[in-house]
């Protein structure tokens, strides 16, 4: 597994209530409290339907990728539908906000990152 810092992709599921509101808000809250960069999308299903080129960019590179969305089986085939299949080399971890607690999701997203603390002050 790569030592590179992980890329993070958060899905808001904005067109439906597939992901519990409280979970997705709490996960986003933890990401915003951290000092890290992250990519967030309104709705991964929409990006898949539109075959949005940004999905390929998320997958580009050698970094591990952590995706907070819904069921891994759905996410896997949504990427496939977009024409950008997820690599099956273990680089991608899909975290399911439909049935996992917000804290567990956020801990997994932020694992190994150096900046967990609130970044109200300038980042170093």
């Amino acid at each position: 597994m790569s030592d590179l810092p992980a890329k993070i992709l958060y899905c808001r599921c904005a067109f439906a209530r597939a992901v519990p509101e409280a979970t997705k808000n709490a996960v986003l809250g933890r990401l915003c409290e951290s000092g890290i960069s992250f990519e967030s999308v309104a709705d991964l299903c929409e990006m898949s339907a539109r075959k949005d080129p940004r999905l390929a960019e998320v997958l580009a590179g050698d970094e591990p990728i952590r995706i907070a969305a819904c069921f891994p089986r759905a996410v896997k085939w949504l990427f496939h539908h977009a024409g950008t299949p997820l690599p099956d080399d273990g680089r991608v971890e899909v975290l399911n906000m439909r049935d996992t607690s917000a804290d567990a999701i956020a801990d997994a997203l932020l694992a190994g990152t150096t900046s967990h603390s609130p970044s109200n002050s300038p980042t170093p």
Partner: protein
Amino acid sequence: MKNEIHPVQVILYEGGGSTPWEVDCRLSVTASLLDQGYSVLRVTEAAGNGAAMRTTRGIPVIVLGRFTGPMPEVVDGAGELRIATRDTASLGAEEILSLVTTVREDLGADLNRPGQTGAWKPWFPVIDYDRCTNCMQCLSFCLFDVYGVDEDKRIQVQNNDNCKTNCPACSRVCPEVAIMFPKYASGPINGELVKQEDLARESMKIDISSLLGGDIYSSLKNRSEKAKSRFSKERSPDKALDERKRCLTQLQQSGMIPAEVLAELDLSSLPSPEAIQRKAKELAALREAQV
């Protein structure tokens, strides 16, 4: 596809030459933008990101930051991008949101806005190819040409926007439980792992080809010329209409298609008998090619 709107990208820049936002403001702006249909990339200098200031060909970008020096340059390699950079130093969350709306409109960028009239809810079947056996039942079932085949005659979702919002009916006809609707409430249609009892379930027995007389696919599949000619002789507009009515009633009674979806399925919205017959022939040819 009905439209090709890609979400506008907003970059919250908190890297060099800028000061970070307060957590509350960052969270409130990010959540609101996402709820309005934007994509949001937060860029900091901290490790643990992997993200960079980048843009994607053809997708409008709005860069926001509290800049302490010159605003960062966003590379527009293709020379096609619509990019706007704005300093948000003195603005609160609400003002930032209005600024984004104004800038987006200035860029001439549309947005598929969740919850707004006319917005397209991304509802469409997603095929799990680890399960799919290419039996084509979904293709023969769907009246709206959502399914098609690729150049290798492999089933694929070709016209996702044609799918009837909130209708998961084709997932019920799939014998392999290979069709997902990720926004559906329950499993395995929502993408949950398929269990043994899911495989044993009764699949939906309504063949929409009965809209045209029930045996069109089987008669074509049997390659019985006699059956084909009898079929075409027996067909009359009245009979076809009766059959469609009967099929719609059957669908209503099945309880497998939401009532509001059925309400939209009036007879006039269905493909013409000729279109269904053409599709049946194409399907028969495909099946023959598979043998």
